[in-house]
């Protein structure tokens, strides 16, 4: 079966054929987009179902597993693939109405972005990871600038400079790793990495941390994100916050567990840096007036929680962290899509502009409120369950300080998200004229916010997928044997 490679190949093929299709018929572009996204989602579902039974290893071009590139789909990759499938489909449907600028370019870039993110989560080869990482970065820069406003060009340039720096550090780390292990395949790298001198290993860790950390917004390296989100279209914000940042974090987690293992030193770095990240981000988010900036800072904060949970290095910590990663993807996408609807219909971009919208657009506002409550961490939504699991895991491993700050962070986020809810449900001065909203904008938002509620009430749905993640992360020999086909 060649389905695993199709997960990457299909969006790539769609991206490049859209331009040719447009020459023949302009109407076909959107039709092909929807068909391709639907097929892609179906393929992902079938692969994920297969991977839940047994992890899949796919050798590209039938090369020997040490020479060629392999795709590895264990539970963690399968979870990422599922998240990518759901979010990408929702965002593509949403874009059919939302995007009225440079349509063709937008779809080409989006499909390239999806292919890149998918590649990052499935690949079993270090350099292949870098190539997909750069595909994601370059398409992101272009997507930020696509609205051709002043803010979007500045955001894109800032993003580009930071992205180039992060790419340079990742590349440096990869070539150093190759030099000390003589391999690029994850399995061989992991097996040989222990022999490297301590100093080199520490250097490589720092380079990976800076490189990927710039992309997933560790706190001193986060400054680009709010500016970028301001000028970008809301549909890209949902993709970026839900997928791009998460894929970088995924790659970092994978590399840290495979190459270094969770030693006490690394564990403490990740835990306390995670705590610092979410505290600073929450405090900065509190001062924001602009909705997109607020959500941007909130995205950074959630990264902090995931870092903290993954850094614990225990089974419960990894489960909590990966569950929060999945949940945050859903919640952030809902919020950005909802905010996108507000800005598309009435041009609201600041918190004050939301006044009265709760009455004129009750259903969309309700969906946004659900996602807001979920991201604060109130029961019965999914955010509550994952934050509770994080708290519990931190308590068990006796990182009491870290555990203490998890509810503090929730309180802080309650502070600024309440401002949003309050603005939504306070009366505006004049009567608001709201034109009816197209179903293509509404339905993806509803579906994602319903997913937040369902995941909170029946967590077993996704926990079944997640319970196997620690098996391949904690004991890297499992992953190595899987990749080498032993």
């Amino acid at each position, binding site marked *: 079966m060649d389905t695993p490679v199709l997960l990457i190949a299909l969006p790539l093929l769609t991206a490049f054929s859209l331009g040719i299709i447009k020459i023949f018929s302009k109407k076909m572009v959107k039709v092909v987009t929807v068909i391709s996204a639907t097929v892609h989602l179906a393929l992902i579902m079938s692969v994920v179902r297969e991977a839940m039974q047994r992890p899949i290893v796919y050798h590209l071009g039938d090369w020997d597993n040490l020479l060629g590139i392999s795709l590895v789909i264990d539970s963690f990759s399968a979870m990422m693939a599922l998240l990518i499938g759901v979010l990408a489909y929702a965002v593509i449907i949403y874009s059919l109405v939302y995007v009225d600028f440079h349509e063709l370019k937008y779809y080409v870039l989006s499909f390239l972005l999806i292919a890149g993110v998918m590649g990052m989560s499935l690949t079993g080869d270090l350099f292949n990871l870098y190539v997909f990482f750069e595909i994601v970065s*370059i398409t992101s*820069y272009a997507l930020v600038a696509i609205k051709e406003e*002043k803010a979007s060009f*500045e955001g894109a340039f800032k993003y580009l400079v930071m992205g180039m720096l992060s790419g*340079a550090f990742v590349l*440096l780390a990869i070539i150093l790793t190759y030099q000390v292990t003589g391999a690029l395949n994850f399995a061989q790298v992991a097996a040989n990495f222990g022999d490297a001198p301590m100093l080199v290993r520490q250097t490589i860790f720092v380079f990976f941390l800076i490189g990927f950390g710039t992309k997933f917004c560790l706190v001193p390296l986060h400054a680009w994100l709010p500016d970028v989100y301001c000028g970008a279209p809301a549909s890209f914000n949902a993709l970026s916050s839900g997928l791009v940042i998460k894929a970088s974090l995924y790659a970092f987690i994978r590399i840290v567990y495979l190459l270094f293992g969770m030693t006490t030193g690394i564990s403490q770095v990740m835990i306390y840096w995670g705590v610092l990240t979410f505290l600073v981000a929450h405090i900065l988010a509190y001062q924001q007036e602009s909705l997109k900036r607020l959500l941007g800072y909130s995205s950074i904060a959630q990264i902090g929680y995931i870092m903290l949970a993954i850094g614990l290095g225990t089974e419960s910590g990894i489960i909590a962290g990966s569950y929060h990663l999945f949940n945050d993807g859903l919640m952030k996408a809902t919020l950005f899509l909802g905010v996108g609807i507000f800005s598309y219909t009435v041009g609201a971009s600041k918190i004050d502009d939301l006044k009265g919208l709760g009455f004129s657009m009750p259903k969309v506002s309700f969906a946004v409120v659900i996602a807001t409550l979920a991201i604060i961490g109130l029961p019965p939504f999914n955010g509550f369950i994952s934050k509770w699991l994080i708290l519990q895991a931190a308590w068990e491993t006796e990182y009491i300080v870290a555990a203490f700050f998890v509810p503090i962070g929730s309180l802080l986020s309650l502070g600024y998200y309440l401002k949003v809810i309050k603005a939504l449900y306070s009366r505006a001065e004049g009567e608001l004229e709201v034109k009816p909203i197209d179903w293509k904008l509404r339905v993806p938002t509803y579906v994602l916010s319903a997913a937040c509620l369902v995941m909170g009430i029946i967590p077993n749905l996704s926990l079944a997928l997640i319970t196997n993640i620690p098996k391949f992360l904690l004991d890297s020999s499992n992953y190595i044997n899987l990749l080498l086909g032993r």
Partner: protein
Amino acid sequence: METTFLAIAVLFGLGLYIILTHQNLIKIAMGIGVMESAIILLFIIFSYRPGGTAPILDADAQAYDLIVDPIPQALSLTAIVIGAATTALMLALIIKIYNRYNTLYIDEIKKLKG
């Protein structure tokens, strides 16, 4: 060998310094270019073996004692292509920014933004 590594470190640091201190957008683009070249040079240095030959098997199939490592060379090609794509995108963005603000200096752009 040590001097080569030193040269690469100096190039990398120079690129980083330009990015961090200069106001002109074109110069920032150049700084990024310098930094990338440093990394690509590092690739080549790592694959270099003194006295090694190119890793190509010919018809005589004579045994090679020493070959240079081909993998970093292949990787550096990929890295150069990625770098070229990003530089092109960056220059395109700079043109767009220049058309809007009629200046290339970050300070003045900030002033115009108000």
